[in-house]
């Protein structure tokens, strides 16, 4: 059997990527994952800018996780300048990050991945076949977005989150209203979980390393230490280069990364595998319904791990709002003099571990920058998964192989605008 597949620009992902597959006489000759997207050189372009302007630029790395990029950037700067955030300002950041996680995970699970599982090319036909379920998806997506809008000032590219704090904070009435909607959202998450339980999620396993932030006292999204499923040792964020090695391949504009193995995975499944015990009771309940337990090596279950995290984000947001109502944050930010130094920030973006590393000079200008973004970290793991999955599919028709490979890539929720941009399969 000879099969040549070139899927150019895999659709329903945020960015461009190509899958290149070559099979001759039933033998796989080539399996490649290419990212041809135009590189934008953010690390180079932030240099020379004053530190207060850099988070606004960093936000523009990704339209889908702009809040995660903003916070990572702010954290790096705050670490460089030795600024400590107040507890309530930090709680508000955690709440806004949850809002983005809800928005981003629901976008992926509901709008981009669900059509695959229901056998349609986009979310549009679901308006007539699965109206009720689609309205649930819309409702949750809206909730995440409207929280981003009200708390961060805009759904995409937040405006009021600045070095050392906030230029504005939401009224308690706004927070209370969201808390009520979050309570109602519990039933919506349950309904969505029920829908996914009825779907046929492919059974595919390949052992790999999972890397995510870890904290003793909570399911880590904001800060922590770098943890791995392959070792007990944890790495402080500032030493990330001791844990992660970035490298480049000629056929792809996005960087790649590896650690203890040839590749590793970041994102919802990685966090789930590493911080399972820290999940909220409701999130554990949803995981239980799928029989999902760490360590899970099935990449397709990343979709389910995202649902579990939506449950966690909803429940933990309710808790955070209680804290914010007890101890409201104030509109205040850092107004002091800059100083020279280096700072590293790390946040779990929806798609995984995100790191910004800046060096600032004594006048406050950023002079060096490095950024490690989740989809880049996953590229090598995507390619390894494709290599392992393809031989299991060779008895199927070409269309089905293509769809399955695309679904595997989409399970990562790849966002190639971060890593530069992504998805074309090219059957060669």
């Amino acid at each position, binding site marked *: 059997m000879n099969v040549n597949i070139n899927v150019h620009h895999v659709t329903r992902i945020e960015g461009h990527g190509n899958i290149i597959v070559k099979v001759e006489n039933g033998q796989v000759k080539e399996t490649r994952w290419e990212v041809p997207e135009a590189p934008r050189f953010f690390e180079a372009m932030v240099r020379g800018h004053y530190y207060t302007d850099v988070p606004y630029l960093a936000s523009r790395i990704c*339209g889908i996780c702009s809040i995660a990029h903003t916070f990572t950037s702010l954290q790096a700067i705050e670490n460089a300048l030795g600024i400590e955030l107040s507890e309530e300002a930090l709680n508000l950041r955690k709440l806004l990050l949850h809002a983005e996680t809800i928005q981003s995970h629901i976008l992926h699970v509901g709008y981009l991945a669900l059509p695959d599982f229901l056998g349609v090319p986009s979310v549009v036909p679901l308006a007539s076949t699965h109206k009720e379920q689609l309205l649930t998806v819309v409702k949750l997506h809206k909730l995440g977005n409207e929280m981003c809008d009200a708390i961060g000032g805009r759904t995409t590219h937040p405006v009021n989150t600045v070095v050392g704090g906030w230029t504005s904070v939401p009224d308690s009435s706004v927070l209370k209203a969201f808390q009520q909607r979050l309570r109602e959202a519990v039933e919506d998450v349950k309904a969505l979980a029920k829908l996914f339980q009825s779907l046929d999620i492919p059974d595919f396993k390949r052992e790999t390393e999972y890397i995510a932030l870890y904290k003793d006292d909570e399911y880590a999204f904001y800060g922590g230490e770098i943890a791995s499923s392959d070792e007990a040792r944890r790495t402080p964020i500032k030493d990330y280069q001791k844990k992660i090695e970035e490298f480049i391949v000629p056929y792809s504009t996005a960087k790649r990364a590896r650690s203890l193995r040839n590749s590793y995975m970041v994102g919802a499944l990685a966090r789930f595998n590493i911080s399972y015990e820290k999940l909220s009771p409701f999130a554990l309940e949803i995981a239980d319904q799928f029989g999902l337990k760490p360590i899970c090596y099935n990449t397709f279950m990343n979709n389910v791990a995202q649902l579990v995290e939506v449950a966690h984000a909803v429940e933990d947001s309710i808790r955070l709002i209680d804290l914010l109502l007890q101890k409201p944050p104030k509109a205040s930010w850092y107004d002091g003099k800059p100083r020279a130094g280096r700072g590293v920030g790390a946040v779990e973006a929806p798609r995984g571990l995100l790191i910004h590393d800046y060096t600032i000079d004594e006048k406050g200008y950023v002079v060096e920058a490095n950024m490690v973004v989740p989809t880049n970290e996953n590229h090598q793991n995507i390619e390894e998964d494709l290599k392992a999955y393809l031989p299991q599919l060779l008895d199927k028709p070409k269309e089905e192989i293509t769809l399955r490979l695309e679904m595997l890539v989409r399970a990562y929720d790849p966002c190639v605008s971060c890593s530069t941009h992504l998805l074309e399969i090219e059957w060669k």
Partner: protein
Amino acid sequence: MKPKVAIFEFGCCEGCQLQLVNLEERILDLLELVDVVPWREARSEYQEGPYDVTFVEGSITREEEKERLKKIREESKVLVALGACAHLGGVNCNKNVFDQNEVRRYVYGEMAEWFPSIPAMPLSAVVNVDYALPGCPIDKEEFLELVKSILLGKKFRLPNYPVCVECKKAQNLCVFDKGLFCLGPVTRAGCGARCPSFGARCIGCRGLVDDPNLEAHKEVMQERGLVLDDVLKKYRLFWGYLEVVR
């Protein structure tokens, strides 16, 4: 027959397309009126041109993209630049002040030559653009207004006054009085002075108003403590392609 609408992207964060997804159920209403193909971010279906209306986000950052954009232009009756990257070159132009080889080496090291790149530019530097929807990201309500205007054959006009006008209407405390450096006096309104309304400064994402008084603005910024080079760096955040910051 429903008008055929296409959405394409070049170098950008795709946040503008995301605003279309964020229309949520209203997108289905829109799809009653137009047929949106291709739309790679949300759908797998693809249809070849010509298209009645084409939305393009992102800026041009590679030589071969110019040809692709010219082809899109030929196939499109109406071409709309979607968001700051397509409209102004946007944040991507912040790399233009560096030597492009140095920029490539800084990010890709020894492998720099594998990654060709040219100074970033807006769509209008390569082709004729019929409408530009400003903002980083675009405002989804303004997007709907533009779509309605195009479908009904009405004129679509952006406000031609600065953000300050909307900021005063919103009764915000002047951002300068909080010790921040605001680009609102010279930036085109239409956002409802969103950033100042959230206590922050305007960073100019919607581009310059027609005939801005830049000399006066530069003076104010300098009186408040910035040196000229710092003023230009703030202009460069979104206006790097414009003469005024070069």
